[in-house]
């Protein structure tokens, strides 16, 4: 029985890991740090797995843990600490232009300019397609707060990304 429960956890992680890693990367803008966040979030989930596995929406629970891990770590000044890595950090991927948005690096840079909670709201709403209500539950705040943070984050992103496009256009 214990093995079956453990097996379930391993299977869950195997399937969800790519998505969790990308979400963490979008949150913090760095694959190495993102993996650290995922590592800690999965440890939190493992500790409570016997209860979590009975939850109606396991994914929503895990995303909530991930987002709060990110916010917690940032609050504790984790990003200011130096961490040793066992390989050279990745290079930015080749940018792809998409519907007028200069992608890749600019997206990451624009996301990095947002406050932590606004970034988390964007990831939950646009990467995970969660509704305002689901996002509010995950962020432990009112739906109105999610709406205002989404709106503020989108406005900032739009301004930053359009500035980038304009500058790129002038430079050409």
């Amino acid at each position, binding site marked *: 029985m214990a093995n079956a429960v453990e097996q379930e956890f391993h299977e869950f992680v195997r399937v969800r890991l790519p998505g969790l890693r990308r979400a963490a990367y979008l949150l913090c803008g760095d694959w190495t740090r993102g993996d650290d966040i995922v*590592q800690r979030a999965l440890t939190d989930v493992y500790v409570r*797995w016997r209860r979590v596995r009975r939850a109606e929406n396991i994914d929503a629970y895990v995303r909530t843990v991930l987002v709060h891990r990110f916010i917690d770590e*940032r609050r504790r000044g984790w990003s200011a600490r130096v961490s040793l890595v066992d*390989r050279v950090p990745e290079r930015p991927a080749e940018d792809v232009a998409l*519907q007028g948005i200069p992608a890749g690096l600019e997206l990451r840079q624009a996301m990095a300019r947002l406050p932590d*909670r606004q970034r988390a709201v*964007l990831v939950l709403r*646009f990467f995970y397609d969660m509704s305002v209500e689901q996002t509010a539950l995950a962020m432990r705040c009112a739906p109105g707060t999610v709406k205002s943070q989404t709106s503020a984050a989108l406005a900032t992103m739009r301004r930053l990304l359009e500035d980038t496009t304009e500058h790129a256009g002038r430079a050409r």
Partner: protein
Amino acid sequence: MNDWEEGLRVLMRDGGAAPASRVDLGRVVTDGRRRRRAASGAVAAAVLALVAGAAVALPGWPGGEPVPGASGAADASDAGAGVGGFDPVLVLRLRPGWLPDGVAADPNPSLWAARQSERYADQPATTDFTISLYAPGFVPRFLDPATKADEPAMLLEPADSLGGRPAQWYSEQAHPQRSGLLWQWAPDAYASVEGITPGSAAQDRAVWRHVAEQLVTNARRPVPVPGYVTDTPAGMALIGMDRVFDRTRQRWATVLVLNRYAYVPPPEGRPRPGIEVTLTPGGTAGTVHLADHEDEWTIDPVR
């Protein structure tokens, strides 16, 4: 959803190839098991301490009273050990040097490593305010970028400095009748006094300022608790103590919060990270509840 938002969504999902994963599932399991064991150990220790009724010292508790410096800032200088913030936690550093007539302290102060508060009110509670002292490096939740979005919107106005340090008036946008004064009692260390009085807004401000000017920040007032956790999980320490009214048993209970780091607690009713051990005194029953664990324990009545 418009094209731009749709584009953002696609871009988020299609951000190029990910590098090889550094997530170590083996370590997830090892660390997770260690945490489960540690949490169970904390329960056993808490139960033991409560049943025995012994006031066993917490690890890191120096045994005596803290030795404050002249300004009070030295109180927090030993905060570096362990989880940060005030250390030891169960000692009130604040003492009002002046209070309005008829006002007395509430017997249940809130003591956290990051912030300690004491409430003062008169009998009909027409005057009702709370003084809070934040440990160096910790700020009120409405100023902290990580938490301010969850807090009511505040109006901030500059105030004359206090003791040569910056000060601000503040009030809740939705309830401006409840106001406060925020200042630095030591470098990078905030204090606040907030609440209501029967007077005008100007009179409120005069009261808050007088309370602030006379506040002693290097007091040594140990606060007794009915039990202690004798053996905390590795890296954890006591970071908070609150009193809650147990409606079932019609008595006050003490909640001890253990964690690996200190934080300014959220308002009542919101989740608080860490292990919570609730002690109901009186020799009848005790409940040990671990907020960070999947189970909940109720211990037998103390005999």
